[in-house]
């Protein structure tokens, strides 16, 4: 059983977000593994533990930054090898181009199952997974909260409004993982140390090309005004003001 896991490096959620002249300052970002991809790693390792095979972690990232420590943790969780595609000018908001680069590397691996997170916490487009599946000519099931592998077939519970759609598919197939698909194990320090022995390849790939739309201007949403205490004569009046603001100002209702 050949399992590939796609892992994206994303900026830490607590990073400082500064926009200058319509461009987001990205130079100070610290990167971490996309949490949704960790669910995929854990699931892949569990499949391998149950039925044998190999788990290959594939990541696409820029040339410079070192991500060894984070990826080593994934090896410690149980991946067998890591392949990092190093791309000049890599950007996380180019799903079509990124999917092309990933698919090319995956074809050589000929995986039976491809797992990845449903979305990245940077751009939340939920796009790379389905696009990779298309390039590989495989069916895909997205936003899966429960996954079973029985007799060479995947049975997936896919999250939809109000419930779950249960889908079965033969292999090969791609599944994008939703939150709490699995409980990601905490790797023991010893395993992290020994992961240094597992294969780890950094492979340069050419710069991106594709139909992705670039961001022409970035901006910060209107600042959180430090909170507004809503006034009103009566409870009903306060409530009416609140609902109005939630609808028109905050646009959350």
């Amino acid at each position, binding site marked *: 059983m050949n399992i590939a896991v796609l892992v994206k490096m994303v900026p830490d959620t607590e990073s400082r977000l500064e926009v200058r002249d319509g461009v987001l300052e990205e130079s100070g970002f610290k990167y971490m593994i996309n949490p949704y991809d960790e669910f995929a790693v854990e699931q892949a390792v569990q499949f391998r533990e149950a039925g044998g095979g190999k788990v290959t972690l594939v990541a696409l990232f820029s040339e410079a930054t070192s991500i060894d420590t984070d990826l080593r943790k994934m090896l410690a969780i149980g991946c067998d090898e890591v392949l990092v595609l190093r791309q000049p000018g890599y950007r996380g908001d180019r799903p079509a181009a990124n999917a092309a680069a990933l698919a090319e590397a995956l074809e050589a691996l000929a995986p039976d199952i491809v797992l990845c997170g449903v979305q990245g916490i940077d751009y939340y487009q939920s796009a790379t997974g*389905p696009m990779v599946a*298309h390039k590989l000519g495989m069916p895909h099931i997205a936003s899966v909260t429960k996954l079973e592998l029985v007799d060479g077939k995947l049975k997936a519970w896919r*999250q939809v409004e109000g419930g779950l759609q249960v889908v079965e*598919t033969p292999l090969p197939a791609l599944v994008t993982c939703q939150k709490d698909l699995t409980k990601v194990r905490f790797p023991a320090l010893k395993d992290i140390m020994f992961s240094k022995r597992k294969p780890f390849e950094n492979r340069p790939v050419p710069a991106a090309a594709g139909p992705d739309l670039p961001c022409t201007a970035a901006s910060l949403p209107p600042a959180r*005004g430090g*909170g507004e*205490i809503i006034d009103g004569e009566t409870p009903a009046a306060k409530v*009416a003001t609140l609902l109005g603001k939630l609808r028109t100002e905050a646009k959350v209702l």
Partner: protein
Amino acid sequence: MSVIIIGEADGSAIKPASQQAAALAAQLGDSVGLVFGSNGAASQLAAPRVVSASALKSYDALQFAAVAAQVAREAGATAVIMAATAMGKDLGPRLVAELGWGYIADALEYYDGAWIRPNYAGKVLARLEPDGPFVATLRPNAFPAGDGAAGAVEEFGGEVPDSPAMTVGMESAGSGVVELTEAAIVVSGGRGLEEAENYDKLIRPLGAALGAACGASRAIVDAGWVPHSHQVGQTGKTVTPELYMAVGISGAIQHLGGMSGSKCIVAINKDAEAPIFKVADYGIVHDLFEIVPALMAALDD
């Protein structure tokens, strides 16, 4: 230009989010609707012409993308719009890959050829200006719906490819309860509720009225009013909804750690000094036993 709207059926009604897509599409050009698995819903989608693929009842990425691509090419379309629902977020990218077009996911605004979408969980907004064909999914309720229904409805006559995948069933989430960590709106209750039954009397109905998941502070979980699965906070669940409403919660650091990533925080507490007001975007300093019923009454309208 020709725009395809992909609408979704919810039983025999068209989803409001699809009507929002239809209204926007009408602004962009001549719209052609496409509805899958319709049981009367297709005739409600506001587009002059609607293609109904009523045989395709269960979502399948391969099949739906193939059908949508055919409809788009046949109509000479240069844009496909749909709501960013579970289906939209799944079909959108697959269709983009099939067509090789640009992609705008979860759009919040559109004006004059420029689209605004959220990055970093809404902390940064990005402007995209497509100069070629594109697929766009729209955040539900970000755009207004129009009036109107379908002009003409025709059955889809093209080829539906076989798909190896197969839907074998549907399971409901159970009593319409929304999962806490994935909910767009969360209403949480705390010690200010005073008694266990007030959680069921006030928070759950408010949650239902808002279509929200219900959470709780640790204090009332410890007191046994609600199960631990409801706990929001350091030792409970971390939630990142669009709207977080804290009712009768003081806002100790352990709770904040679980919800400070929410896009919009509303606090209702009679204690003006409660720390929650420091992180809330909107606060009402008032007895919750008066505010919550007023809120539910207002939402009923």
